[in-house]
């Protein structure tokens, strides 16, 4: 007993690490925790969708065209703006002098009744309504979460990684390294953003999620670079860095072990900002035809479709995608803010 008590006392007295301190501070922030919960929930949706457990057959046409929501979350009266769609049964009269080489085969197939058409049953309403082809908007939103989240997160990671690495080198070493990196930075920012995006898209010349991530990551690092460079210039000559140098810490250790944690709040804020802005950029890319292909759904492509739907008064796809996006973006921002507070060494 005595021995274990001593261990317990020792454990309490042991110095807490940065992350465990941050965690305990985060736990005191209720709003931050709720936001974290929301983000985790989204993450679970993303994983489930990626694994194919949910929204696997989002492209299945479950409802009628533009089926309205059935009132669980939204409600809309069924539209009277629909034309009755009657499939014309066509009587073809043969034309003298022309032989259809397939006619005998088609005749046999028709007779064998292999070719009996069966129109599948379609629902009149769906929980969140249906899009123009009758696909379930709820499933599209879930599947779109996967695409948008992955695009936003990975592109933001890529841009923050690039930006902070280059910014750290530029700010820490200064001199010619700084000059060269600044030159690259100036070149990138001198080109109008959309033009740059299109140029990189043209070079990659492919469609798909990985292309979008690369495009956004390769164009979005400049803001992070500027901030990180300034932070590193500020911190380079601080006492704690000089102290680290005096005990023989290498450049890399000083840069990434000593300075980085002190500027990580900047990175986190940038990361969250980029996640949000890249989700929006994905919309722009989809609009310009460089976004995801037709066999993929993202919030961007949903919002894009909503442009034309709104003219017809079909607002549910817009509402679902916007709500899903707004909730994630808000939660992500609040969580990042809480994380920043928790990680800031100056806030005890």
């Amino acid at each position, binding site marked *: 007993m005595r021995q274990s008590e001593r261990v317990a006392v020792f454990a309490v007295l042991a110095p807490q690490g940065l992350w465990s301190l941050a965690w305990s501070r985060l736990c005191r922030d209720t709003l931050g925790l709720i936001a974290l919960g929301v983000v985790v929930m989204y993450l679970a949706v993303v994983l489930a969708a990626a694994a194919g457990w949910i929204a696997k057959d989002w*492209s299945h*046409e479950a409802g009628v*065209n533009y089926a309205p929501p059935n009132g669980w979350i939204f409600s809309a009266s069924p539209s009277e*703006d*629909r*034309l009755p*769609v009657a*499939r*014309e049964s*066509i*009587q*073809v*009269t043969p*034309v*003298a*002098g*022309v*032989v*259809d*080489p*397939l006619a005998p*085969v*088609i005749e046999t*197939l*028709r007779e*064998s009744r*292999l*070719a*009996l*058409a*069966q129109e599948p049953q379609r629902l009149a309403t769906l929980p969140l309504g249906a899009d*123009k*082809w009758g696909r379930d908007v709820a499933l599209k939103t879930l599947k779109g979460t996967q695409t948008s989240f992955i695009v936003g997160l990975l592109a933001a990671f890529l841009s923050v990684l690039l930006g902070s690495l280059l910014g750290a080198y530029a700010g820490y070493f200064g001199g010619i390294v700084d000059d060269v990196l600044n030159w690259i930075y100036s070149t990138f920012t001198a080109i109008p953003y959309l033009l740059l995006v299109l140029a990189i898209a043209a070079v990659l010349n492919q*469609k798909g999620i990985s292309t979008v991530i690369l495009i956004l990551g390769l164009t979005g690092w400049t803001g992070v670079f500027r901030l990180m460079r300034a932070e590193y210039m500020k911190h380079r000559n601080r006492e704690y860095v000089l102290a680290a140098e005096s005990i023989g810490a290498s450049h890399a250790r000083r840069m990434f072990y000593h300075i980085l944690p002190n500027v990580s709040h900047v990175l986190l804020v940038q990361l969250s900002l980029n996640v949000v802005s890249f989700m929006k950029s994905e919309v722009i890319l989809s*609009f*310009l*035809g*460089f976004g995801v*292909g*037709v*066999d993929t759904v993202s919030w961007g*492509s949903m919002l*894009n479709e909503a*442009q*034309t739907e709104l*003219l*017809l008064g079909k607002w549910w796809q817009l509402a679902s995608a916007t709500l899903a996006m707004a909730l994630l973006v808000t939660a992500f921002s609040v969580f990042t803010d809480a994380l920043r507070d928790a990680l800031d060494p100056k806030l005890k």
Partner: protein
Amino acid sequence: MVMVWALSGLELKAQPPVPSSAPTAPSALKVLHLTFQAAETGFDPAKVSDYYSAVVISGIFDPLLTYDYLARPAHLIPNVSEALPTISADGKTYTLKIKQGIVFGQDPAFAGRARPLRAQDYLYSIKRFVDPKNRSPYAFLFLGKIVGLDALVSKAQKTGQFDYDAAVEGLQAPDPFTLSIKLTETDFNFSHVLAFPLVGAVAREVIERYGADSSAHPVGTGPYRLRQYLRSSKISLEKNPLFRTLRWEALPSTDIPDEAIRKSMQGKLLPAIDRIEISIMDEAQSRWLAFLRAETDMEYQLEELAPKFLTPTGELKSPFREQGIQLDRSVDPEISYLFFNTAETIGNQPNPIGGFTLPKIALRRAIAMAYDVQDQIAVIRKGQSVRAFYPIPPGVAGHQSQYRSSLSYNPALANALLDHFGYRRGADGYRSHPDGSALILEYASTPVERDRQFDELMKRSMDRIGLRLSIRKQRFSELLKLSSQCRLMMKQAAWIADYPDGDNFMQLLYGPHTGQSNAACYRSASFDRLYEQSRRLPDGAQRDLLYLQMTRQMEADTAWLLTDSRYRNVLLQPYVVGFKKHPVLTNEWIHMDIDRTRMKKAPAS
């Protein structure tokens, strides 16, 4: 409707050469405000091919022939010629007499003298189309068709200078007012070329005076002249004071809307509207708002906004009807179609859907049977189009409204057909070639939102029959180039009448036009034979039968799936009278008027 010449040309000659137009108070002027959704390129008839420039050009220049304003399908009538051309029995020589007393509008190039219109002006204007220096997109109207003209062109290509004074056997003016055109081959439909709005008379003095700037100095014999021109922004036309006397005249009609037009326009001196003000507005939303604020008087480019003012059945919604806004709704003389490249290879790769063996035809047939045209009309076009079955659209000579295509929507039959020919489904549900190799269809479209909807429809339709689809995205001009080189497998295309004759559409499938307009690269010996026969026939039952056989032949080979023809919805302010959309003429405002009594009083400011 027949237009009559109320006064002889003598009176025009008696007029002073440069009359000062009677000063009218600006408020008394009748002004029609229009918009273009794309910028014009210029007003030299031999240098343009875009719709918007052609609209302006057709108000300033006079072709030899024109179309009756109200008759449908479009019906040829004389314009500045005394009568329709006299065509020789072999269909090779066209002779026309030009009315005397018609003069060109004022221009410094004429040094203050009245400049009468002569047959020579038309010969000069026709030669300008084939002058290599002008690079006219419509050179094909004359190249290879007129005796002796091609020799002159090849000489010009060598010397770099087109000799306008050289005699051409096929283009003769026996006297100043007689025109004789000799064709290399029998063609009973050449009159349509003479009615083409761009084939109007230009004056050689004017063209030579302004040289490269001829695009900004259009001087013709037509009802309007250019008053003010700010490139890509504002075009203003006013009545040509030297225009001949022309009255609106029509025979009584049984068609009720036509009768209303006749009542309001009969006997009026044309043109009735003093000024045409055209502004360029790219955005549909801006054009719509401008029309709502009555800043424009007529609007016809609101395709994507149609649900805002139309009910699903195509009537004007009540708030607009109550304001007295008028709707003119007609089907454009155009067809949209999905074409299949029928060539054996694309570049040096084998074309999975090309060739004329049974399995390949069956594959194309299955795609055509699985593509859901009904959804295209209801969802993508939002009901603003009608199903097209025949390659010749309504309003064009040769159209058959009762015809039904043998390619009908039936995915179940399409599946059975593919099963029958051994296109077996793999574990993933997608089919492969009968020999087991992978089968991927490539569908080309442009990176715009509207085309994404077509992509989705195509993908849904192909998924239904287990065909794997890849989508190739490229800019419109790039795709046009590729399709004329037969390098695309499948694509949506549309064609609007250049002139209202079925030949303009049937030529799209003629084998030797591969590399030009035949994007399906369709080469069928029997189709080509029928087409060549049809070219030698005038419009009539005999030619219609050939067209019918050609259409069915194309379906049997499945080179196209015809989809739809779009509606043209024209909105007019309550005070605009006399409008009826013409299938090919673009200058309806020559035949229209503004009724001031129906104009709302301007709100007191």
